[in-house]
């Protein structure tokens, strides 16, 4: 069984990598316009698909359903937060930035606020946001390799770097666009196939979005969600459909993620690649359809998986567990500690063990097993009743096995996870390289550079960015998971207001915008660093401002940015005539 899965994984991963390389050779960039915006020749549908792959990262594919599984209703912050931003993109940003018609976000900020200082601030924001995000993607590539192919995690990161290096450096935006289309197809297929199977098994309806609201196929006639709420309350958890976060925190996190999404440079820049303003509008619509397929399926998978887990494990003897239980114990994603030594698994609220499981091994490296054959861990157990540790990633990774699906499906999930991580990494690396080659070198350091040497610099900076990202993938800073919250908060508190004001408020001047960006950036950064890195022991609702967690603080940062922009903007003179004309210009398609 295991061998089969591995063989299928090698075949499917190998095949998809060959496709990505083939596409990269076919779509080689010949000019900076090719490299930065794929020559603005991408069709809206193609761009929509590429945007979906660009956007959906390793986290969306591997972790989100699992996260929702354990958050219940609260998981809505990710579902609405990571889709609702597209409405803002379509209505407030994409068409106007397309009409502006340059290459990068710093380009817009620099021209609109008539200053290289503003441009440089934007470059710094873009680079910080993108690097925090990309480190996690490279790590994700390494994880998939180590889980499925038993390759050392660092080697996995190196292989991923090699692939991205190849098509990002060679093809730039053009290469990335077409590989992202291929990657979208791989990842959505890989996500949906297990979902159809599981939905059908549990509810008799193969469409997960409908199965989610159907009755169970076990003959009880009870609705899945009703049963899930019942199981949760029986075991002392909050009901699945109600959640535990406070309402204002859910509100602020959702807003920060939405606004952050609309302010992420690697997403915005994708809408520079279509030929016309109306293409940009509809392209956002296509992108959201492609994203929504995964995002409406994920909560269904979350509920199915949680139901399967609870039905399988609770108050059952360890020796009665199916085969997959043992397989995932050996990867330390699942751990059972028999606290009361009765051989029966108790699943209850609270942590089962301190920290992440570390498997006990003897000198020969063999796993040490307990009385019932369970994998022993070094961790000390907690005093609570819970005996089960479940890693959230298992919900997607182990789904095919839990549902007894054929081996090729598991291989497909690995290929899908890699596609999701690589496509996002490539988009982010491009933002970093264009910020350097275009907004620093071409626009500021060496303005007389030829297109050809600018293209060379773009390739060099892309190569440099891949190396730095790989370094962070292999040596992740201890707080990688924590800083992802920063990426969204920063994007929401810095770019979004500056761009929106730039389009909708003609009189906003350089001083106001810069003061706003700096205020929003510093405020958000300070809040997140304080609670997440400096004093994590204070990271509880009683210490948060207005009950807003660090994940949601970007919303407040954005409001601060707006306030400061208006206040400071009033003191200084209006922008020059030609800038106001430019703003006027971008409001009309022609």
């Amino acid at each position: 069984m295991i061998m089969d899965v591995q063989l299928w994984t090698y075949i499917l991963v190998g095949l998809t990598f060959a496709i990505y390389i083939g596409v990269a050779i076919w779509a080689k960039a010949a000019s900076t316009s090719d490299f930065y915006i794929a020559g603005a020749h991408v069709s809206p549908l193609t761009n929509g698909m590429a945007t979906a792959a660009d956007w959906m990262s390793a986290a969306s594919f591997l972790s989100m359903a699992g996260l929702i599984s354990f958050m219940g209703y609260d998981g809505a912050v990710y579902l609405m937060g990571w889709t609702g931003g597209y409405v803002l993109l379509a209505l407030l940003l994409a068409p106007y930035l397309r009409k502006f018609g340059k290459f990068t976000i710093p380009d817009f900020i620099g021209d609109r606020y008539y200053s290289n200082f503003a441009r440089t601030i934007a470059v710094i924001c873009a680079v910080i946001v993108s690097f925090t995000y990309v480190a996690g993607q490279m790590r994700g590539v390494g994880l998939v390799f180590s889980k499925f192919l038993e390759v050392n995690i660092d080697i996995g990161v190196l292989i991923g770097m090699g692939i991205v290096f190849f098509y990002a450096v060679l093809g730039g935006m053009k290469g990335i666009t077409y590989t992202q289309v291929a990657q979208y197809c791989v990842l959505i297929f890989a996500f949906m196939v297990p979902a159809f199977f599981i939905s059908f098994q549990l509810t008799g309806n193969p469409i997960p979005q409908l199965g989610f609201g159907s009755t169970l196929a076990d003959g009880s006639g009870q609705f899945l969600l009703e049963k899930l709420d019942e199981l949760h309350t029986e075991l002392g958890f909050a009901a699945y459909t109600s959640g535990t976060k406070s309402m204002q925190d859910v509100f602020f996190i959702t807003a920060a993620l939405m606004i952050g999404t609309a302010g992420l440079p690697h997403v915005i820049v994708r809408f520079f690649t279509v030929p016309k303003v109306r293409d940009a509008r509809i392209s956002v619509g296509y992108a959201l359809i492609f994203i929504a397929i995964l995002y409406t399926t994920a909560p269904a998978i979350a509920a199915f998986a949680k139901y399967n887990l609870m039905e399988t494990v609770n108050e059952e003897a360890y020796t009665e567990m199916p085969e997959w239980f043992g397989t995932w114990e050996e990867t330390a994603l699942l751990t059972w500690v028999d606290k009361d030594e009765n051989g029966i698994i108790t699943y209850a609220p609270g942590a089962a063990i301190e920290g992440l499981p570390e498997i006990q091994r003897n000198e020969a490296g063999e796993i040490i097993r307990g009385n019932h054959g369970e994998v022993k861990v070094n961790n000390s157990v907690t005093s609570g009743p819970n005996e089960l540790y479940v890693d959230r990633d298992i919900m997607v990774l182990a789904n095919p096995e839990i549902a007894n699906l054929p081996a090729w499906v598991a291989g497909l999930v690995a290929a899908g996870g890699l596609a999701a991580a690589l496509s996002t990494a490539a988009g982010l690396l491009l933002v970093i390289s264009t910020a350097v080659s275009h907004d620093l070198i071409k626009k500021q350091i060496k303005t007389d550079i030829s297109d050809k040497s600018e293209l060379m610099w773009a390739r060099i900076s892309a190569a440099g960015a891949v190396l730095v990202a790989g370094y962070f993938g292999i040596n992740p800073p201890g707080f990688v998971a924590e800083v992802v919250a920063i990426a969204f908060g920063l994007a929401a508190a810095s770019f979004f207001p500056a761009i929106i004001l730039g389009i909708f408020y003609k009189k906003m001047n350089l001083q106001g915008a810069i003061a706003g960006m700096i205020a929003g950036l510093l405020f958000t950064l300070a809040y997140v660093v304080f609670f997440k890195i400096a004093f994590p022991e204070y990271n509880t609702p009683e210490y948060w401002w207005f009950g807003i967690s660090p994940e949601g603080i970007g919303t407040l940062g954005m409001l601060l940015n707006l306030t400061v922009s208006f206040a400071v903007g009033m003191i200084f003179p209006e922008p020059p005539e030609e800038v106001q004309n430019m703003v006027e210009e971008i409001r009309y398609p022609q």
Partner: protein
Amino acid sequence: MSERDLKGYWKKNLKYLGILLSIWFIVSYGFGILLAPALNEIQVGGFKLGFWFAQQGSIYTFVVLIFVYVYLMNKLDQQFNVRED
């Protein structure tokens, strides 16, 4: 340029934005968050309504909103003669 009523075009655009973004807000933040506990009293099929809006309905609404916007703006572009060829 002078022949066309660009101010009118922009005003109409802002009006569309106002309406569509209000719906966007009401469905996601309203139905999905603020009113979710109340809507959860209503059961539609296997879903509590507030939960459904938070995890499914709002996403469908977002998609529809964008396509409605595209439709309205394409019509507006033509009406005010600002459509690109």
